[in-house]
């Protein structure tokens, strides 16, 4: 069977084609069925994301390339794609309540999440700079819209607007960097850049800096983090959960792939940048979160800090470091989705509550929720034997082995600082006098909370599958 277009094999892009076609079918169902079909479209979108994940795993093993090398499906891409698709699917499950209100029955929400996921998949598999840019735009454009999807809430509109303007700025920087890199190497493909970059040049490093600035924005790393707290706070909670999970996976994936496959021989140059970004993110994320009163803002600073920790692994520039990044981001996605589903579950008299003081005495009014949230907080702080500890362990070990001892020490210190505010939340939940009871938790939200909590709690019993999968994925980059 020949399955090709313009001489290019289509087999490696089969999951993307499935997702895009499915997204358009969903759009048609919604367009003809109207707002009534919102629930149906959302369920179908979750199934579609699941089917796409299965398709990614069912393709033949090994490194598949198509479109003249601008699309690469290797073990790294498989790992990240499954993770991103999982994050998107869980977000859609969490957003059912948000979409069930009559004024917010927008079936396009699910369609936009599906199309954004298609952008993430393109981004994760990108083998050249044009593909990176197109994937990034496809992913981000849908994100800007879902950030503003709660049209009655001025804060949501503000979040969408801020994200859009700053996102356009970062895209501009990325494009500027890409054009400089193209100008000095004469090619946009990563393998070509790697070959041309062997002897390095000032112009190329200039381009690299701008390229990394654009990517730092997407993963909300310091000094390009300023949008994160406002957007996380303003966007509707399911959307915030989405921002914190799937797009982060795609952003980290493209970050890792660009520096490791396109610039392996200018390690000295990008290592400085990544080390600086990692230290600044960890420090700012940990210190700035202390004074926060709003739990979503706090999670935003926590996200900044966690990206810093993940980049510690990348700055090692070794396969072990890349493995650490993959383990970190996988565990982080589970933790953050769990934490956001708890925030989503916190409603009093039908109103969402977001202040940390509202969690007071949760251990008495809803002990299960308090227990799982406590475990997730301990895990985010990196306390053994929870999953978050293993995540930090692997990146720090990789950094130490690569000789970046100072970086690892700073990482450990900032994670101790960070532990303060995670533990403060646990203290509020367990030792402060209780407020009135929260509403009963919806079934699907409670399910996500329990699943994320149990995965965190029991990860140490059987960590091998994740660790070995991440190891295989990281090796495919070298």
């Amino acid at each position, binding site marked *: 069977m020949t399955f090709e277009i*313009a001489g290019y094999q289509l087999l490696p892009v089969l999951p993307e084609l499935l997702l895009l076609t499915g997204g358009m079918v969903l759009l048609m169902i919604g367009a003809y069925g109207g707002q009534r079909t919102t629930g149906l479209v959302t369920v179908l979108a979750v199934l579609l994301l699941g089917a796409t994940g299965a398709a990614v795993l069912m393709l033949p093993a090994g490194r598949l390339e198509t*479109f003249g090398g601008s699309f690469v499906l290797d073990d790294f891409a498989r790992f990240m794609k499954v993770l991103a698709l999982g994050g998107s699917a869980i977000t859609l499950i969490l957003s059912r309540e948000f979409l069930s209100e009559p004024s917010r029955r927008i079936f*396009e929400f699910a369609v936009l999440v599906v199309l954004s996921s298609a952008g993430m998949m393109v981004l994760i598999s990108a083998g050249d700079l044009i593909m990176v840019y*197109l994937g990034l735009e496809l992913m981000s454009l*849908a994100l800007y819209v879902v950030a503003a999807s709660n049209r009655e809430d001025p804060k949501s509109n503000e979040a969408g607007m801020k994200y859009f303007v700053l996102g356009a700025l970062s895209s501009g920087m990325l494009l500027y960097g890409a054009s400089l890199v193209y100008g*000095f190497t*004469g090619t946009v493909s990563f393998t070509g850049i790697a070959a041309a970059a062997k002897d390095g040049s000032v112009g190329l490093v200039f381009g690299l800096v701008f390229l990394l600035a654009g990517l730092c924005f997407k993963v909300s790393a310091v000094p390009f983090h300023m949008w994160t707290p406002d957007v996380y706070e303003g966007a509707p909670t399911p959307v915030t959960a989405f921002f914190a999970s799937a797009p982060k996976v795609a952003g980290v994936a493209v970050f890792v792939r660009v520096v490791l496959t396109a610039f392996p021989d200018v390690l000295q140059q990008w290592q400085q940048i990544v080390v600086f970004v990692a230290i600044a993110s960890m420090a700012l994320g940990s210190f700035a979160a202390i004074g926060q009163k709003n739990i979503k803002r706090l999670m935003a600073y926590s996200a900044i800090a966690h990206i810093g920790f993940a980049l510690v692994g990348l700055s090692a520039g070794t396969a072990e470091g890349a493995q650490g990044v993959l383990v970190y981001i996988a565990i982080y996605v589970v933790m953050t989705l769990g934490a956001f589903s708890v925030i989503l579950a916190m409603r009093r008299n039908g109103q969402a509550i977001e202040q940390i003081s509202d969690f007071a005495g949760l251990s008495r009014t809803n002990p299960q929720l308090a227990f799982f949230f406590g475990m997730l907080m301990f895990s985010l702080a990196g306390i053994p034997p929870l999953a978050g500890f293993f995540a930090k362990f692997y990146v720090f070990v990789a950094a130490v082995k690569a000789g970046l001892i100072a970086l690892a020490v700073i990482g450990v210190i900032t994670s101790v600082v960070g532990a303060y505010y995670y533990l403060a939340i646990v203290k509020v939940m367990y030792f402060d006098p209780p407020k009135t009871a929260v509403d009963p938790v919806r079934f699907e939200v409670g399910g996500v909370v329990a699943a994320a909590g149990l995965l965190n709690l029991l990860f140490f019993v059987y960590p091998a599958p994740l660790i070995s999968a991440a190891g295989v994925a990281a090796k495919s980059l070298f």
Partner: protein
Amino acid sequence: MTLPDLFFYLYAGVCIASAVMVIVARNPVHAVLFLILVFVNSAGLFMLMGAEFLALILVIVYVGAVAVLFLFVIMMLDIDFKQLRQGFLRYLPFGLTVGVVFLAELLLLAGGWVVRPSVAKNVTAPIPTDVGNTEALGLVLYTTYIHYFQIAGVVLLVSMIGAIVLTMRHRSSVKRQNIAAQNARSPETAIAVRKVTSGQGLREQDSAEWVQ
């Protein structure tokens, strides 16, 4: 100096001058008009380089659509630019310092920077001489670069969905055209024959019924 050189300096000079005017013009409408001048002169530069397709696209898309859209937005928004400019003098010293530092850094970089001779050979896609610009683009756009083209199409689809999601509101008070209902009307439902008594006219409930 040949004629193309002369035209290059003409286009480039006007381009830079009007780019400066975009920033310093007091009236925002003038700024947009200068922006259009920048676009037209850049199109001229493209034309000199033999990229006639890009030149015309620049005029059609940027001048014809984008700049006109800018103009509309500026006229509709009624932004008080005087107020926006108020901090200008106050921040001038700071801005100048940063600018000078950047300039110094750039000069340092440019001074100690030798461009490798091999860079000149980096043109990987030389301009074809046997076919026209448009034809050359058409030959690769739907074949070699089909994947980029398709993804760009999906990006456009997303922006379309986004525009609809963010702006369309279903208002119950707004009457919408229902073509099926219009076509289903028959003379029996649409026309009512009334006997009008001379000097009295139609009673109100009769006419109300008729409008239905």
